[in-house]
């Protein structure tokens, strides 16, 4: 008494080994997703794997069909309840993992194992879609290898192919396929635009925000993730000039700096908002005003973040082409958030001091209004600072002298640079200037701009990055999130917007030595010593260089890069047709090389006339329900025909005996040719009557044991 879906009991090992491989491949696929799918899905996969292996190893009964059905329904319901959809990368992956787990519970046939392995490969594909960083690549390769090994084992369930041999065979097959994969990667026509960029669900990428509050930059300082990398045409700028301009903040509420007043957000932004585009003429006029222009042309590869800022060396004179525009405060704003790595080329002039001709000539009403915005201060906040600013301005002969006196105040006022400042209250500038006197770039910039504005000078906070680490292997500058910085810009009549970095006055070493010195975490001496060891540093550099190569050349291999490659190969304006031809040619080449390689293996000889005639005979007999097993010789075949179709036996015996004599008998050259012709003719002429109802021809009919024992006499 067994339910209809109880599997047949088979030799244990023949079942268990392929199942273990399949389970391992499937679990590997699930583990690649472990941080993207809910915990219960991973748990389900683990439990079902253990269950199916236990069932196979201990010969327990597999769960009944009703239970499996209920489980599948419940898991689908759980996915829907959690994601409210079955679409999308995460919901789909979760559903796939859950259904694969249930399938594993009935993977006692080869076909079922193939399905589980298909699911595992699909999970691998999903992992490739969601994460493409360099450290993941070996994991993906290992999982692909595991899946292929499991496929090899599953394809030979009862064979003697050992696990080692299976792994080696899978590895060899993958290696053979590798050139093909590379060719397809290089030449397969690419769709411009990112088909693969699936919407990210609340990615918490770090990056510059468009607000600055006490403590904000410090969060960034703790992240050593790369922000972007820059390759220069020529030598890089000296450390003191490596200011990378990000969002410019105009509005201050006494505690937080932001780009626009909060009440503007959500409403239609006024035409004169900070994000208003600079007219093209203005950009053209912004060409270097001083003869001592220090121009740098460079390429930036920006890491993904949740923001739209495109970072550029201060100050951009020729913005990059693409979906980006430059605002009046010379910030590059992309059309979309940078959700995937992008690269662009820009030209900057570090000596450009913002002598904005339109502003210098005054009073252009728009410029005046823009300048007025940078005089804003929240009423009734930070009264002591406002008072100080007014006093210092009244004592100074000029705006420039005023700025110098404020800087002097910072230098002599007992201020200290630290990344772990005390918490500040509502009147943050007052508390900072007259209380704590400890802080980092954000505090100094905020206080400086407040003082300037109190003195009636237009000023604004600029956030971005300062510095960068030169990577001698990749010959590029690596800017990490921890290099985030904030400084000030003041508008001086006749000079325009001028960069002033109050932090540099307090902590000049911040400019030259990077932020690492100030990090609270890395402050412990042994750790810093370790990080500064030359060989560790070189390993880090090599690692980052390979990461950069991966991001630029592999992940970032887009239509443009493909066109560039093709141009170097001599195809100037490739059409999809030409790409297809190139791909086909490469494919043929690959097939030729691989075929030659495989062709060295011994191959069965081409069937001769006799073999072809014999095959025809076997085929004819198979069609009427008497197929030949592969291990049946002519006499044994005749016996098997006699059992199945006694009516055919006499003719079949004559023909098969004739074949046996031709194939295995002594060769007598004289008569052989005529006998062979006779045999061919007899085979061709034999019209075998179909028995009614015709039994279905089965190519591999298991024969009873007794039949085997009596064979061969």
């Amino acid at each position: 008494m067994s339910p209809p879906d109880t599997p047949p009991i088979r030799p244990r090992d023949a079942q268990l080994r392929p199942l273990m491989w399949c389970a391992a491949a499937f679990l590997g696929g699930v583990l690649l997703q472990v941080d993207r799918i809910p915990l219960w899905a991973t748990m389900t996969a683990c439990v079902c794997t253990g269950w199916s292996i236990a069932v196979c190893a201990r010969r327990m009964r597999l769960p009944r069909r009703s239970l499996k059905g209920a489980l599948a329904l419940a898991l689908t319901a759980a996915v829907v309840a959690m994601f409210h959809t079955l679409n999308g990368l995460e919901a789909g992956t979760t559903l796939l993992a859950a259904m694969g787990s249930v399938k594993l519970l009935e993977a006692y046939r080869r076909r079922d194992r193939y399905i589980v392995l298909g699911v595992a490969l699909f999970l691998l594909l999903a992992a490739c879609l969601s994460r493409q960083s360099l450290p993941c690549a070996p994991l993906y390769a290992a999982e692909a290898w595991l899946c292929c090994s499991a496929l090899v084992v599953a394809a030979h369930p009862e064979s003697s192919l050992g696990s080692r041999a299976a792994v080696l065979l899978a590895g060899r097959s993958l290696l053979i396929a590798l050139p093909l994969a590379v060719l397809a990667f290089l030449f397969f026509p690419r769709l411009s635009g990112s088909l693969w960029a699936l919407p990210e669900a609340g990615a918490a990428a770090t990056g510059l925000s468009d607000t600055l509050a006490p403590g904000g930059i410090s969060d960034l300082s703790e992240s050593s993730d790369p922000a972007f990398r820059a390759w220069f045409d020529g030598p890089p700028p000296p450390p003191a000039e490596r200011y990378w301009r990000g969002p410019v903040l105009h509005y201050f509420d006494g505690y937080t700096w932001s780009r626009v007043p909060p009440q503007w957000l959500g409403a239609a932004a006024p035409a004169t908002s900070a994000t208003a585009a600079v007219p093209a003429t203005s950009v053209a006029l912004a060409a270097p005003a001083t003869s001592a222009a220090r121009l740098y042309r460079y390429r930036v590869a920006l890491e993904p973040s949740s923001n739209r800022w495109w970072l550029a060396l201060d100050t951009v004179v020729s913005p990059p082409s693409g979906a980006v525009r430059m605002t009046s405060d010379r910030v590059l704003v992309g059309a979309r958030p940078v959700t995937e790595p992008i690269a662009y080329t820009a030209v900057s002039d570090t000596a450009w001091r913002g002598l904005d001709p339109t502003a210098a000539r005054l009073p252009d009403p728009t410029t005046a209004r823009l300048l007025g915005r940078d005089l804003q201060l929240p009423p009734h906040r930070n009264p002591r600072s406002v008072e100080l600013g007014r006093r210092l301005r009244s004592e100074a002969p000029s705006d420039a002298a005023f700025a110098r006196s404020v800087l002097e105040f910072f230098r002599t006022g007992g201020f200290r640079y630290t990344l772990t400042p005390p918490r500040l209250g509502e009147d943050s500038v007052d508390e900072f200037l007259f209380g704590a006197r400890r802080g980092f770039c954000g505090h100094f910039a905020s206080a400086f701009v407040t003082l300037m504005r109190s003195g009636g000078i237009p000023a604004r906070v600029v956030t971005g990055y300062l510095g960068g680490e030169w990577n001698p292997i990749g010959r590029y500058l690596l800017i990490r999130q921890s290099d985030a910085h904030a400084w000030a810009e003041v508008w001086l009549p006749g000079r325009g917007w001028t960069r002033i970095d109050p932090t540099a006055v307090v902590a000049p070493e911040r400019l030259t030595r990077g932020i690492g010195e100030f990090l609270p975490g890395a402050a412990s001496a042994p750790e810093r010593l370790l990080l500064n060891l030359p060989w560790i540093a070189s390993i880090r550099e090599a690692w980052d260089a390979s990461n950069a190569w991966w991001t630029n050349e592999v992940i970032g291999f887009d239509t443009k890069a493909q066109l560039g490659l093709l141009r170097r190969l001599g195809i100037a304006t490739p059409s999809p047709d030409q790409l297809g031809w190139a791909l086909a040619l490469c494919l043929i080449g690959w097939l030729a090389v691989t075929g030659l390689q495989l062709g060295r293996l011994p191959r069965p000889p081409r069937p001769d006339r006799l073999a072809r005639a014999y095959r025809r005979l076997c085929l004819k007999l198979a069609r009427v329900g008497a197929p030949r097993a592969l291990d049946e010789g002519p006499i044994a075949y005749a016996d098997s025909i006699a059992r199945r179709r006694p009516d055919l036996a006499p003719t079949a015996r004559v023909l098969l005996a004739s074949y046996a004599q031709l194939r295995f008998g002594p060769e007598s050259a004289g008569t052989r040719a005529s006998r062979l012709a006779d045999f061919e003719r007899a085979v061709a002429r034999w019209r075998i009557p179909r028995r009614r109802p015709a039994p279905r021809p089965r190519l591999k009919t298991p024969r009873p044991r007794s039949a085997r024992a009596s064979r061969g006499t």
Partner: protein
Amino acid sequence: MSTHPASERRDPADPADPGEPGEPGNAALGRARSALETVILGKPRQVRLCLACLLARGHLLIEDVPGVGKTTLAHALAHVLGLAWQRVQFTSDLLPADIIGVSVFDRATQQFRFRKGPIFTQLLLADEVNRASPRTQSALLEAMEERQVSVDLTTYRLPDPFFVVATENPHEELGTFALPESQLDRFLMRITLGYPEARFERELLRKGERRDLLAEMPSALDASSVVRIQQAVRAVHVSDALLDYVQRLVQQTRERADLKLGLSPRAGQGLIRAAQAWAYLAERSAVLPEDVQAVLPSVAAHRLEQREPASAVDGESLAADLLKRVPVPI
């Protein structure tokens, strides 16, 4: 076992019937076979394999539990083939000299004279061969391979034909020396008899000792006709296609990862000789794949061993598996 006698299958009108040995030995062989089958009831396949083994000039190892007729079979073989035979009961204190012979000093001639041991016979029945010490075993086995014996710088040729039929009891392990693989390889075939079927057992129980029948039975052959038949067996045609098949079978045993050892070239030669003998017994002038398939379990089983003893699959099923895997050449 339901064999179809050759006569039933052969159609006089069939011009392509493979084979007409036309030897005078054939009728005698048929008599020998039926005589053996009356002594060993219900085991026609084993009887036929034994005959094939001896006709292929091979030595035979009979492995089974006591009391199933191993010794009777050996007796009957010797008697029916009309050969001179000797029997040596192997024990742990048996010395090589006890088999091969010993040089004794002859006072009359003042010289050493070689007194031949029991091995100088046409059929040697080595009973319980695994009880003797390895030294004695190897003395016997060397003689088997070389068909000659060297004592005191003199080489004595063994008579022709020369067969060794050895028996061993696989289940008794105390005080036995299992034959190592290199020596097992020298036996062309190993067969097991097994318990008889119920109806044959009943007949055995009713009629009592079968060995007594031998005395009344005339010999079907004699030594010279055995040699003639052996030569005829060698003449049975072996086609290239069949050699391909045997090579593939042997190759397969060497490629399998779960086997300790593949089949040796000697085993391959033996396989072809045995298949020739089998074809001869079936009155065919050429070897067919079916002949190879029929003898392969007996020829290969004792030479194949699985690597992992835990999943002990015996040689017979390994051989059957081997046959299933290798397609017959077409």
